[in-house]
């Protein structure tokens, strides 16, 4: 349905996207995962026909849309990272304005505006100015605007940034429902691993402009099939202990957080006993030690040596 073929994008000295290949099938939810600066937004902008790639092609139903973006533009709804709304207009005025931009008219437009307000739970706030809305309400309206013209493909660029857990959950459920009920194709970018894990059928992981992994969730997690993810929890750490772990020849990756250390180790090596001895040696009050099922975060850690939110 929609393809990015060997796409690169250079901004002066920075190569934001390097030889990216991507395909999107009808009705699936695609996740684009990566830390800030990975090139996700640039990829999304190219996919949305907002910027032209330095090289490569964007094809919609096998036809290039770089020079003639109109067919793709009519088929997509974009939820930008920013709240792309007019704060001085009401929710209804925003929807009416963008509805007309999408060429909806008269009673059809009014009907759609009412439906969207209902879907995003803002019917009672339709006359209120957007500037008076909470962050979550603005995000919901931001999504609602993109859905006005019933797009085939909904492209969402980090739609849950800076909102409360309730609104976040509401948005995730909405995306899930749209996909299920309307067979809407969704391209979802995020640096929240759990969102992508929850929503997406297939995932593309990007880092520093490169595509470093792609496939279904299961396929990606298979990357860690020959390795174990060990989680160590304690109240505090000391540097000597961490240095010891990092220098250990059987430990591939060490990621340290405040009360948890994640280790990636070869499956055939059992380090349990040794780790317990090390905690005693370095006077670490161990709270737990267990082998986890690999997560996308672990895959990213394995592939880049860094956590997604570093």
């Amino acid at each position, binding site marked *: 349905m929609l393809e990015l073929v060997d796409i690169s994008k250079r*901004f002066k000295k920075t190569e*934001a996207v390097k030889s990216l290949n991507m395909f999107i099938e009808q009705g699936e939810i695609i996740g684009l995962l990566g830390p800030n600066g990975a090139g996700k*937004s*640039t990829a999304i*902008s190219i996919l*949305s*026909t*907002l*910027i*032209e790639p330095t090289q490569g092609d964007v094809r919609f139903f096998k036809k290039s849309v770089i020079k003639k*973006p*109109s067919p793709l*533009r*009519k088929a*997509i709804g*974009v939820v*930008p*990272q*920013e*709240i*792309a*709304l*007019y704060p*001085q*207009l009401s929710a209804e*005025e925003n929807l009416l*304005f*963008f509805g*007309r*931009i*999408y*060429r909806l008219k008269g009673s059809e437009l009014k009907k759609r505006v009412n439906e969207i307000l209902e879907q995003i739970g803002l019917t009672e706030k339709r006359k209120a*100015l957007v500037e008076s809305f909470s962050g979550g309400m603005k995000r919901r309206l931001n999504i609602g*605007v*993109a859905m006005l013209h019933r797009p085939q493909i909904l492209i969402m660029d980090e739609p849950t940034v800076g909102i409360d857990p309730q609104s976040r959950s509401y948005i995730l459920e909405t995306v899930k429902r749209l996909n299920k009920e309307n067979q809407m194709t969704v391209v979802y970018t995020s640096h929240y691993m759990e969102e992508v894990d929850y929503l997406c059928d297939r995932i593309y992981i990007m880092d520093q402009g490169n595509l470093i992994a792609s496939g279904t969730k299961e396929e990606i997690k298979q990357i860690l099939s020959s390795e174990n993810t060990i989680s160590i929890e304690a109240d505090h750490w000391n540097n000597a202990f961490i240095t010891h772990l990092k220098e250990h020849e059987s430990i591939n990756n060490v990621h340290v957080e405040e009360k948890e250390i994640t280790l990636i180790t070869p499956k055939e090596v059992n380090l349990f006993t040794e780790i317990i001895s090390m905690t005693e040696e370095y006077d670490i009050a161990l709270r737990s030690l267990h082998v986890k099922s690999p997560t996308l975060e672990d895959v990213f850690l394995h592939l880049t040596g860094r956590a997604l939110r570093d």
Partner: protein
Amino acid sequence: MLFQLIKKQLLLLWRNPVQIFLLLGLPIILIVILSMALAGFMEGGSPELELKVAWLEHGDEAEQVERFMNEMEALGVPAEAFGDQGQLQMVTMLREDVFQGQDLQEMLELEVIQADEKADILTDSSYSGLIEVPENFTYDMLQVISEQSSEAPELIVHVNQEDGIYSSVLSQILEQFNEMMATQTFLQQNGLDIEIEAMQAAASAGEQVQVNQADPISSQEYYTVAMAVFNGLYVASTIGFFAMRERQYQVFDRIIVGDMSRWLYFLSILISGTIIAFLQLLFLFGFSYLVFQVTFTDVLALLVTTFSYAIAVGGITVLLTAISYRLQTESIIGFFTGIVTSVLAFIGGSFFPIGELSETFERLGNLTPNGAGLTAYIQLLRGSGIQDISNYLIFMAGFGAAMILIAAMSFPKRGSKR
């Protein structure tokens, strides 16, 4: 679609009271303050003075002139040599043509008094002065003019010292008259036949020219148009600022992704800037009409001029938007608002009529859209028609077209870059 974009711009402005105030309230305040404060400067610096002067004449001037003529005739000088006898009555001339003349009648009240009132007048502080014409003044003066005597008589002037500027004005009037008499005496003694009346007529003609320079436009009229064209420039930065916000918040991207032509958006910015500038100027002219009675007699010419200027503002609006979109910064709009607008206003004569300083300034001012607009409006207020200001109209429309062209070349091809 275009209508929706323009409607949205107008709605955004309408919902922004600060910008409304800056575009409509502030110029009104400036018009009121500047036209009041600089009224004297604009209207030739004539302060509103009201002098009350007493006039005491000893002796009968007609009798003195007749006596002088008889003596001259006895000496063998024919009466015709002195022309009309009425012209020899210089005191009457001073009283009637100067003090009670057209030029001074609005600022000077002359009261002819009798000798017994003199003491009271001298103690009355409501009088700026008392002019006393001595006995035989005219006769003695004619004697000097005909070289029968060398001792010139003098008018006695009592000025109220507490009345500062008023008594000074009174002294100046008399000095001027004395100079005129001295000149006339010199000319007469040297056989040149120029009479007092002719000299006064020449002086009056000179004053008339001065009046013609200052009279056609009042400070209210000047500052109405000066502030209108000056503040019209702020429409460009206001709409440019709105457009820049649309880019920053990715609303512009959303519009482009909605498969709307970027040229339609471009056109909406141009038309919005033009419409808002047009309405703003008409609002300000309407205000000045109601409050200051600033009236443009040729309404069609006013509308055409305002539309031409609005096109120039629309051109600047779309250029500012295009450049800020290309450079991805709103600092260009800030620079325009903070510096360029003030410079244009200064050169264009919005703060004071800079064109009167030199021809170079005048020419330079007319090369700015606001300066050309200001000159066109002033000419309309002075009674000129569309044809007289056609070069300014063409300049403003041409300026707008040039801005639009540069803007079109600078406008980014697609959405905002990341």
